[in-house]
C-alpha cells in the first residue's frame, strides 16, 4: 500500500497547451501497485486533461510517460490499453443498446474462424463475462442484459469490469460515483478496494471527499494546471484537502 510497492505509472513534467491556453504545466504523477491515488481539484484545474493525456487520448505538449520504468509515447487509447492502462470515463463509455458482455469486450471481441472468415464467438464472450463478473462479485441478472436496462451503479460496475477484463495494471476512474444513488456508491467503492487487493494501481478523480477518504492511499491536488499539494492520506484531513482544491495551503 505504500511506495515500497513496484512503481507502475509515472508522468514527468506533463505540459499541455490548447492554442494559447495552458491546461497543464509541468505536472508529475506516480502510481504504485495496489495503490489508489486520489486526484482532486476544482473545475478547470486540469484533472480531466491529465487523465486524457495518461490514456493516450491527448498528446502532451511536453513531458514524458513512464510505464513500469520504460518511457512510452501514446498515440491512441489503443496504445495505453496494450500497456495495461485502462480508463473508466465519466460518461461511462458504454453502448446502451448492446448487452453487458459485448460492452465489456467491445473492440476486443473474441472470434472464431470458420473457413477464412472470422465470426464473433458469442459463447466465449458469455463465458468470459460471467467468469469476470463473478470474480469482481458484480451481480446482474445475466450477461445478456442490455446495458440501458441497468441502474447507474450497475452500469458503473460494468464500466469498471470492462476496464479490468484484460489484465489491466492501472485503472483510471473519472468521477466513478458522480451519477450514483447513495446506496450504490458503497458498492462501487467496494469494487475499487477489490481491484486494489488484486495489485491493480487505481487513480480516482473525484470531488467527493467521502470517496477519496474511503479508498485512496494518497491524494494529490491540481490547481490551475499545476501540482499544488500531495500527501499520504493518513497525514492529511478533509479540511486540508478541501483547502487545496480552493488553492489554500
Amino acid at each position: 500500500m505504500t511506495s515500497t510497492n513496484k512503481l507502475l505509472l509515472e508522468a514527468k513534467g506533463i505540459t499541455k497547451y490548447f492554442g494559447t491556453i495552458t491546461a497543464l504545466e509541468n505536472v508529475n504523477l506516480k502510481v504504485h501497485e495496489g495503490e489508489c491515488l486520489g486526484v482532486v481539484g476544482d473545475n478547470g484545474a486540469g484533472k480531466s486533461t491529465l487523465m486524457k493525456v495518461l490514456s493516450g487520448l491527448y498528446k502532451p505538449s511536453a513531458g514524458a510517460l513512464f510505464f513500469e520504468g520504460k518511457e512510452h509515447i501514446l498515440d491512441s487509447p489503443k496504445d495505453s490499453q496494450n500497456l495495461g492502462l485502462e480508463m473508466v470515463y465519466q460518461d461511462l463509455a458504454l453502448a446502451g443498446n448492446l448487452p453487458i458482455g459485448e460492452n465489456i469486450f467491445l473492440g476486443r471481441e473474441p472470434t472464431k474462424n470458420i473457413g477464412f472468415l472470422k465470426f464473433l464467438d458469442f459463447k466465449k464472450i458469455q463465458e468470459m463475462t460471467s467468469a469476470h463478473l463473478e470474480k469482481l462479485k458484480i451481480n446482474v441478472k445475466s450477461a445478456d442484459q442490455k446495458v440501458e436496462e441497468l441502474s447507474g451503479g450497475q452500469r458503473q460496475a460494468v464500466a469498471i469490469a470492462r476496464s479490468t477484463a484484460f489484465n489491466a495494471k492501472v485503472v483510471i476512474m473519472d468521477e466513478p460515483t458522480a451519477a450514483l444513488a447513495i446506496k450504490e456508491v458503497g458498492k462501487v467503492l467496494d469494487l475499487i478496494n477489490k481491484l486494489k487487493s488484486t495489485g491493480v494501481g487505481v487513480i480516482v478523480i473525484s470531488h467527493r471527499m467521502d470517496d477519496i477518504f474511503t479508498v485512496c492511499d494518497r491524494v494529490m491536488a491540481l490547481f490551475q494546471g499545476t501540482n499544488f499539494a500531495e500527501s499520504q492520506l493518513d497525514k492529511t484531513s478533509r479540511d486540508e484537502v478541501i483547502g487545496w482544491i480552493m488553492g489554500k495551503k
Partner: protein
Amino acid sequence: MKSLVGLWEKNKMDDKEKKQDSLYVKLIPYFEKYGILLLLVIMILVMHILQPDVFLSWRNVTNVFKQISWQSMLALGVFMVIVTAGIDLSVGSIMMLSLMILAIVAKAGAPWFIVVLVPLFAGFLCGLINGLGITLLRMPHPFIMTLGTLYIFRGTGNLISGGTPISGFTDEVRYLGHGRIDLTWLGLEKSQYLPVSLVLIAVVYFVFWVFLNHSRTGKWIYAIGGNPSAARASGINVNKILIIVYSLCGFLSGIGALILAGRTDSGYPNAGLQSELDAIAACIIGGASFFGGRGTVLGVFAGVMIMGILRNGLNLMDVSSFWQQVLIGSIIVLAVYVDVLRRDFGTRK
C-alpha cells in the same frame, strides 16, 4: 422459528415478483424482435381475405417480390447507415447514376461481365465519396453531405446520358432483375417460376444479416449507433467504420441499379426518384431507430414487404395511389409511435 417463517414468506413474495417480472420482461424482447413480423402476417391475412383469388396467387406473390427487389437493396443500405445514427439521402441518385453508367457502358459494346460489374463499382465509389465527405470534411451531419450528393449524383447521371433514356441490354445483364428459375422439374407449371431477384434478395439479406450480427465490424456498427464516444474509447476507428458503412450502402444501391436495369431494360433519368424516402420509410416501419443502434435486418425486410404488399394490395383493389400515399404515411407514424411506447416500457429511465 418466527424469523424462519418470515424468511419463507419473504422468499415466496420474491418468487412471485420474479415470476411476474420474468413474464413481463421476457415478452418485451420477443415483441421487439418479432412484432413487426406479426404486423406483416396480419396484413397478408387481411389482403388475402379482401382478394382471396388473386392476392396469394403464384403470379401476384412473385410480382410483389419483383417490385420490391431493387427497393429492398436501397433499404438495406440505408438501414446500415441509420444504425450508425446517420442518414443517406443519396441512394436513389446513386442508383440512377450507376444505372446510367451501366447503360452507357452497355451501349458502348462492353462484354456483359463488365457491364454487370460497373454499376456495383460505381455505387461503391459514390458511397465512398459520401463516407469520405462525412468523415474527412467533417460535415456536421450526414444529412447535409448526402443531400448534396443527392443532387450531384443525379446531375452527373443526366450530364453523362444527356438526360435521355438508353434502352436495350443483353439477357446476361438483365438476368438478376428479369431472370426466371424454372421449377417445372418440381412438377409445377411453366408460369410458376422463381424470380432470380427473389433469390438475390434472400442471399444479400442473409449475407448482411451475418455481417451485422456475427462479425466484429457489424458489432461495431451497432456500437457506434449506441454511443459513438464509447466506440471511440474502445479503440474502434469510428471514421473507418463509417466510411465502410456508406460505401456498402452505395454498393447495395449499385446492386439496385443492376436489378432495375434488368426489370426495365433501360436506363432512364427518373430512375429511383424519391426512392431514398421509400428506403428510409421501410427502415422506420421495420423498427430501426433514427437515434441509431437499433433495428434488425429481418425488420427491414418486413418493412420493405409491408410497403410492397400495401401498394400491391391497394392496386389490386383499384385504390387510388393518392390513398396509398396517405396510408404509407400513416403506417410510418403508427410504427414509430409503437416504438415510442415500447421504449417507455423497455428502458429504465
